[in-house]
């Protein structure tokens, strides 16, 4: 069926559990016939288009631990259902995890951000998801729960293929755990789209940098690219190369070149292989520039 065929939703049962225990019990019972609802901005569209279906839709928004943001010395615990707008409206989150808030601010328009969650964006596992490269450079870890217990998965390992994740039947994402802020660090996410809003990323790039005290040398770096492979990719080599390098145009350009190597894009109506590979380098350079500026502040 073509991607945008509109069909009417098949009927389903709706449940709004108030605890994780209740939710995971239902998930265990329904297995693949259950779908989770946070913001609904992906799942409702997909169910309408016949790409996903369900006997049970589990609304997670009544489970308080999925809807809270906790920030302390250990970092941030971001409930999987927290909508995007709560991230960028929170000055503390914006300062500490700016790549993530950059992404949150451009997922769809304001109406989408009022509802869509970072957790949902991750679990939807689109190759072009905006939040995933950002989560990767923030070194996020996924807290996964089921009726059997909890486990953690680094975000870089979470997506396995387009629309596929490591979640087993009966498992769900409960939270994202982000490490505490490191001094002299900064992060950013940039996306290339043909318009200025409302488009799916043609290429997305996130960067996190840690500079030395004088701000002229890279101590550490993380770079991730989206929309250029079946899953978002960490540009390991490019980031590793930056360590110890001076901060200047030449090193940024080189990092861009190295980052391009992880790009294995496809030709589709949003861009050609050649164009996307080229943009990977350009965006890597530009996102590093922003991250550096923020690190110096």
């Amino acid at each position, binding site marked *: 069926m073509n991607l945008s065929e509109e069909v009417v939703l098949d009927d389903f049962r709706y449940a709004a559990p108030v605890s994780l225990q209740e939710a995971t019990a239902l998930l265990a019972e329904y297995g693949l016939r259950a779908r989770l609802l946070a913001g609904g901005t992906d799942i*409702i*569209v997909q169910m309408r288009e016949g790409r996903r279906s369900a006997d049970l839709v589990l609304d997670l*928004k009544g489970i308080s631990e999925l809807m809270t943001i906790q920030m302390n010395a250990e970092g941030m615990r971001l409930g999987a259902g927290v909508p995007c*707008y709560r991230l960028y409206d929170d000055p503390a989150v914006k300062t500490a995890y700016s790549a993530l808030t950059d992404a949150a601010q451009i997922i769809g328009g304001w109406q*989408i951000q009022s509802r869509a969650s970072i957790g949902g964006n991750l679990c939807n596992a689109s190759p072009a998801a905006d939040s995933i490269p950002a989560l990767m450079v923030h070194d996020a870890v996924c807290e996964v729960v089921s009726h059997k217990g909890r486990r953690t998965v680094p975000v870089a390992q979470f997506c396995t293929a387009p629309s596929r994740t490591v979640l087993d039947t009966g498992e769900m994402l409960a939270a994202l755990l982000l490490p505490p802020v490191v001094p002299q660090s900064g992060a950013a996410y940039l996306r290339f789209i043909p318009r200025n*809003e409302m488009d799916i990323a043609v290429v997305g790039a996130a960067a996190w940098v840690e500079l030395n005290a004088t701000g002229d040398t890279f101590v550490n770096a993380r770079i991730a690219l989206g929309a250029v492979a079946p899953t978002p990719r960490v540009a390991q080599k490019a980031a590793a190369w930056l360590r110890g390098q001076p901060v200047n145009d030449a090193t940024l350009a080189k990092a861009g070149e190295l980052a391009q190597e992880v790009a294995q894009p496809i030709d589709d109506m949003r861009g050609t292989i050649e164009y996307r590979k080229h943009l990977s380098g350009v965006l890597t350079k530009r996102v590093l520039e922003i991250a550096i500026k923020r690190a110096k502040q």
Partner: protein
Amino acid sequence: MAKKLHVTTTINNESVEFLCEARHSLLEVLRDRLELTGAKEGCNNGNCGACTVLMNGLPVVSCLVLAVEAEGAEIETVEGLAGHDHFLHPLQQCFLEGAALQCGICTPGFLVAAKALLKKIPNPTEEQIRFNLSGNLCRCTGYDKIVRAVQAAAEQMKETVS
């Protein structure tokens, strides 16, 4: 026949109850059950903003909200903007005076989103207006007069105590 759910919610400050199937969107229920046809269907997948309503003060595309999620929420639609005694909200008045509509189909969505915008940012720049309203498509006006109408309303609302 699919089993129906009973929902109690608040719409434009009034308590409202309705029956719906789990799969019905808030947009469908507003338009087909509650006679609130101000919110319009333009695309049914969240890309045009013509169905925008406020849910607990935030603009959402009602085509991507299940009606059952309205339980316990506060919904505001375009029908709730104007008041009695011929009172029009400053946004409505400025849209009229500034000719910020042509066919009018996108207008309810813009008005509701703009109301939320001016609450969040009472004195928005042109850039902020355009950014926050980028989820509302208009094909007739080219946006110029819409942006100016929002600016005029912001000016007007500054001067009055609402």
